[in-house]
């Protein structure tokens, strides 16, 4: 018995140091729900165990957007300014969040009940793990604005793992970059559609292809065009 306890503690300690865990979803129980805003939401059943049956469902991170202040205004500011010599520069600052609103959660609950029955309980968005390779907001895409924002970034916030938590970013743009971004926003150009802001997560799944638990990289991204126009 002593030996067993010894081994078990060893294992537990290994687990303790390796451990960073999140909710586990059942990959075999995937549902697609289209919300009234036409967005498609992926919902998974929580992975059960050999001695329990779960009726809990979670959605993957969704609805990446500029967060809103108490007046419901988008927290986005692009300020251009001129110095005494007339040279124009710009300061861009925005806050972002992801997740469903209260009404959207209710919408998903109703849809789930229709699909899997009244016992289904929608628990909201999953709390994913951070992808430590990309633990800050990413600016990606083929748009020339990608380089402009990447090079002018002064601070990029960490990816929030809780829905509706915020992250902030600030940029200081020189004269040319300011003009380019200003024109792109004013004219709603195609360049906005190929610039994506993304958050990277790790989602834990069980079932389907592999035995046991496995990690899936998950990227939540939205282009600047949608962010500015929705």
């Amino acid at each position: 018995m002593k030996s067993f306890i010894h081994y078990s503690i060893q294992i537990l300690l290994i687990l303790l140091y390796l451990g960073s865990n999140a909710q586990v979803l059942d990959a075999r129980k995937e549902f697609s729900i289209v919300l009234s805003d036409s967005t498609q939401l992926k919902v998974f059943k929580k992975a059960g165990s050999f001695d329990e049956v779960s009726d809990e469902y979670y959605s993957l991170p969704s609805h990446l957007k500029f967060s809103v202040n108490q007046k419901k205004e988008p927290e986005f500011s692009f300020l251009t300014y001129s110095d005494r010599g007339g040279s124009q520069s710009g300061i861009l600052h925005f806050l972002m969040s992801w997740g469903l609103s209260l009404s959207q959660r209710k919408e998903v609950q109703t849809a789930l009940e229709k699909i899997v029955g009244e016992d289904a309980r929608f628990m909201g968005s999953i709390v994913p793990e951070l992808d430590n390779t990309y633990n800050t907001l990413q600016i990606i895409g083929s748009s020339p604005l990608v380089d402009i924002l990447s090079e002018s970034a002064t601070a990029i916030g960490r990816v929030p793992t809780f829905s509706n938590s915020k992250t902030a970013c600030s940029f200081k743009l020189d004269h040319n970059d300011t003009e380019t971004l200003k024109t792109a926003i004013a004219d709603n150009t195609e360049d906005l559609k190929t610039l994506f802001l993304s958050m990277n997560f790790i989602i834990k799944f069980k079932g389907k292809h592999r035995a046991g638990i496995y990690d899936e990289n998950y990227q939540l991204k939205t282009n600047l065009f949608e962010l500015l126009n929705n």
Partner: protein
Amino acid sequence: MKTKIKHVLKGVILLYLLINFTSSDAQIVDDTNKLSLTLKDGTQVVLYGEASSLSDRKSKNYYYLPVSLRLGAKPDKTPEFLFLKYITEEKEANGGIGGALLHMLMEWGLTPKQQKEVEQILAKGEQGARKKSKLKGALDVKPDGDKSLRIISATLTDGKLAPSVVQSLSAPVLPGSKVAVASNLSANGAQLLAATFEKTRSITDLSIEMGFKYTTRIPAAKGRVIVNWSEVKKHFERDYAKYEEVRGKKKRGGLFGGIADALFGKRTEVKSRSYDEVRSVIDHMVEKEYIKVDFDENIADDRVTKIREAFFDFFLQKMTESGDSDVLTPPTEKEKAAMPNIKYGKKYTYNRRFFESSFKKKTETYYLNYRLAVEKPFTLTANLASWYNGVKNNKKCVGTVLMNDKFFTHRDINMILDLEAKEMFDKEVNYVTVNVKKERKSGKHFNAYTTIDKEHLKDSGLKATISYARGNDKSSEVYQYQTQWSLKGGNIYPKDPEWQEGSWQSITLFPPIVPRTIEFEADLEELSALGVVRATLLLRYYKFGEEVETNVPLTVSKDEPLVEKMIFTDRNTQGYAYQLVLTHKEKGKMALGWDDKINDDYIYASIPQELKDDDPDYLDKIIEAGKVILKPGADGKVSKAASILDKFKDVIGIVKN
């Protein structure tokens, strides 16, 4: 029969929990018991239920994650925020400054109103909470990393716009604890930041991010092992019967031969087995599902393998008794993998009592429920705009200041050396010292001095400055000063200088003497015709209040009709006296008599008509005068007996101050 040996595993879990609780002072909450509440003001509050020891029971006691990042407030409710724009009267080029000070204290935590609302939601069982749930306070958190408080701002990260930024580095771990951010913004930085939060904008260029870690207990792995001893026994009995039929009384072989030996054979003939042999027995039991292992884990697969190994070792210990082999042999690969520190292979003997008692149980079930306390990250981010609207009209928080407090003013006492004097530093002046005094009503009088010498002229030019701090002195009186010159020959002038009234504009330092370049010209042909070989100009003037003489010779044979000579006369005189002395090649010196010159430094050697006419009386007179010419001292000083300037008092002395 179903037997649960929970107490074994509970012991493990208890030990594990003890380890975890002692390794962290934080409360441990249940990751599966999470609530997300939306308050009336839109604030979203995440709460976790307290983790119940050794139980999956969901607690009704909840703790909230950091929320409501906001400005701190003083006891009188004044927000702890300052945005103070400042400017001086002077331009930047003249030493003036302009910019703004930003200083704010921040805290997090539910406000009393929010806390009440959360308590009500929990008590009523709304928004997913169970009825009669309770709010126990804020969750214990710790800063995530060395710099868990981050400023996100393009303005404050620009060295020119914000020359200095000072901030707390760690996010506060308790609700109501405060952290500070302060910056001295340049004029442009102040305007830019002000533009983002003074105008109608949704956010400012200043967000604060706080990174935390909290400890939550997660169900890491859940296991169940069912051993169907009845099936095991049935199999052994079948194998035994089959063996008896074939081999009679010989030792039993086959996979379970060892166990059959232990159970049914002669005790004296029981043979020890190797690790691999015992291991293959257990693997076979698992394969045949006599031992059924169910495992749900929320962790990576390789760790589950280790847990399975732990179960195997548990059975190994139960089923066998081990000892050192008679012959020292290296351990097998499997044995080494299970026991990394093992040096030699062991021998195993099946435990008859274990099997006998186990077969009586028919079925045995082991449960394992691993819960791990793990740290999870959490960030709290907010923008200044969400707080600024509440303070922008508060004069205690946002203001401007014109920095014209005379206390801090310095007045420069400028002393400029007269341009002429610069020339004299090589010839007549060593240095000049200026003493300055300004009486203050406070009694702390201002006294200072400066010295201008050749080095000063080289490094700083003609100007010297003494700064006077105004402080509390409201006296409008100007300062006083005195000058003392050090002159060639070790002269100090004046010996006892008088205090004079200064001027805030500047004072000009004039030396007590002024240079005069005397030009002396003669008609060489005329002199030669008269038999004069040299014309000497004798100059008498005041220098430092004393009569001195300088001679300027013009020799005919040198064929130079004009000679120049610089003399230094007292500043407060405006002329000098002179006498022409002609040296005749036969008659000797002829002194033509003293005359004066006012503000005219050109002297022409005019030959009197009497001399041209060879007037004997006149000649006698000037020859006699030439005989009594006295030489001055080495420094040009004239003795009292030889003094002549008093005769010209009306002309030279009249302007003597």
